């Protein structure tokens, strides 16, 4: 059964420099506005019982999408159908009347969502208890802290038993204990086969909680599907952008251009090729790096290769060289040497990675040649573990 069905749903705003422009436009039938596209037309089908995540940078259109789904914004184009009672927490501390007390706001919010006075009376004790607000429930909500706000909002919204729950970023505040409590409640929603649309900067939460996800960028869908792969793709893109800001990559032009000692080839072995020409490795696969270099007139002992695995945000994961490991390169012919570095099994976690290769002399001080950023590859792991590499570990009983 389909819970949410959106067809060509989009939102653009007209921005007017001054209110008068609106009337000028109306009268003169000429545009006096600038169009702001918050969300490009998007098709979305969410099955009942699905937990659906929305990821993307700030201003990518996440909130716009959730507001459209919640019905507080009218779409500029397209249609939207939602089955069953929906409730939403949009933005922090929103949707309350600041002058009303917490209790009055509970009343108001519940009757807005269509509960009868009797139903509200019945639920109020539970709502107050879950919110942990105690006596503060009698104070006007304008005096609440952001944590209190969110506790109240979450308690109200989830206690009315919606079929579709829309939560925007709300869980990023509040103390850890309440976050846990609300997480548990959302998990229970999932178990009750209710539909949850969820947006968070905490990508781990999205990966963990959601079945499916959409990645928005500048109001356009960059990807939609299985939440783990969407989150991985999004994270790769974030890291990639971060690395672009770093200018610490040394260019090869600094090197001796006419040297007869140079790296000929660095090549990855294993992995599956993708249309984007970036090989994908599964966590635990074999990863081989084959290096060929021209040693010129140097002796084999005086030519060493150093390889560094870097993540696409520039983080050095691991670097080692034949010099450190006291290994000699193998002679291929008079001029050429080669060697293969094997990682088996590959313990990297999901992410985009690349290599740095350094051709150095026997002292490790002189660099003949380098490849600062080569052999991009991707690692994928179907697991909720987080981090950079998998560390060997054991769980042991305690007293």
């Amino acid at each position, binding site marked *: 059964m389909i819970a949410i069905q959106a067809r060509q749903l989009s939102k653009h*705003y*007209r921005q007017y420099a001054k*209110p008068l422009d*609106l*009337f000028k436009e109306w009268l003169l039938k000429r545009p006096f506005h600038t169009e702001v596209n918050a969300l490009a037309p998007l098709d979305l089908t969410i099955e009942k019982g699905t937990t659906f995540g929305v990821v993307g940078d700030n201003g990518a259109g996440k909130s716009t999408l959730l*507001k459209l789904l*919640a*019905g*507080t*914004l*009218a779409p500029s184009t397209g249609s939207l159908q939602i089955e069953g009672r929906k409730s*939403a927490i*949009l*933005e922090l501390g*929103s*949707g*309350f*009347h*600041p*002058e*009303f007390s917490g209790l*009055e706001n509970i*009343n*108001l*919010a519940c*009757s*807005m*969502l*269509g509960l*009868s*006075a009797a139903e509200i009376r019945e639920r109020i004790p539970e709502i107050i208890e879950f919110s942990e607000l105690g006596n503060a429930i009698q104070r006007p909500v304008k005096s609440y802290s952001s944590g209190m706000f969110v506790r109240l909002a979450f308690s109200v919204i989830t206690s009315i038993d919606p079929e579709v729950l829309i939560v925007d970023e709300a869980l990023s505040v509040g103390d850890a204990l309440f976050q846990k409590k609300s997480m548990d409640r959302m998990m229970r929603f999932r178990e009750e086969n209710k539909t949850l649309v969820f947006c968070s900067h905490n990508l781990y939460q999205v990966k963990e909680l959601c079945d499916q996800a959409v990645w928005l960028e500048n109001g356009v869908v960059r990807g939609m599907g299985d939440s783990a792969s969407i989150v991985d793709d999004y994270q790769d893109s974030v890291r990639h952008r971060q690395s672009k800001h770093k200018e610490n990559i040394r260019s090869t032009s600094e090197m001796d251009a006419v040297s007869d000692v140079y790296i000929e080839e660095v090549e990855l072995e294993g992995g599956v090729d993708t249309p984007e020409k970036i090989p994908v490795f599964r966590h635990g696969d074999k990863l081989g790096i084959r290096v060929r270099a021209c040693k010129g007139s140097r002796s084999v002992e005086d030519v060493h290769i150093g390889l560094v695995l870097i993540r696409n945000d520039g983080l050095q994961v691991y670097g080692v060289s034949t010099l450190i490991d006291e290994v000699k390169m193998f002679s291929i012919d008079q001029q050429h040497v080669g060697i293969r570095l094997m990682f088996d099994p590959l313990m990297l976690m999901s992410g985009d990675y690349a290599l740095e290769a350094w051709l150095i002399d026997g002292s490790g001080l002189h660099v003949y040649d380098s490849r600062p950023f080569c052999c991009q590859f991707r690692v994928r792991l179907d697991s909720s573990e987080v981090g950079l590499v998998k560390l060997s570990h054991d769980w042991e009983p305690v007293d």
Partner: protein
Amino acid sequence: MFRLYRDLYQQRQSILLMVRRDTLLRIKGTLLGPLWLLAQPLFLLLVYSFVFSGILKISFRPDGGSGDFALYLFAALMPFSAMQDALQRASGSLAENRDLLLKTQMPGIVFPAVATLGTLVQEVIGLLVLILAAWIMGYPPGATLLLLPLLVVLRLLMTFSLAPLVAILSVFIKDVGQLIPMLMMALFFTTPIIYPLEMIPETYRPIIESNPLTWLVQAYRSVILEHQWPVDHLVIVAVASLLLLTLTGALFARLQHRAKDFL
């Protein structure tokens, strides 16, 4: 547009909640409490009686006794000031409830409705004071008073035929909030409130008579003080209000989503 009224019906509980809250807020924390709702019209009536009957010594009708001016003035002033108050509140209602409007599913039409109903209690108490004072001063209540609830309903209808218009226009043009008091003052003097309808020269009559508010305040006087059944007046008011309500509703339905981008 029919969705607008369906929204109103669905949100009736929220509306009542906000109206009650607004009314209670005015007296909350004061020493007299609910007595203030009574004290204000009572005090106003005493002042009017003193000024018009004690000092100016004018009467509203040729055959009227002393003190009737205050009563006639008061009978017209109650619906008028309730309407004025409601429209003033309506003009700021969407901006004040920005949070609820933008971040919850609350439909916008609720807020002018709350502004309209928010003046009901004050008006009813004022009318009760008036009826009582009139009785004391020699205008005993008659059967025509049975029409008064209908009049109040019509007054609400008339107010609500303007409140959403004022509310939505104020979002696009901030000046509307400033304009309302001026327009209301003009309306105050072009409606027979501080003078009887009969006093208006023939040349201006059509202007004054084309104002449905004229017929509304006349009806209030008829049922409270003159024991007449102003049925024709009521028909005029009802028809005018419904026409205006249709226009206002259509405009509000068209503009409400655009308004959200401006808030």
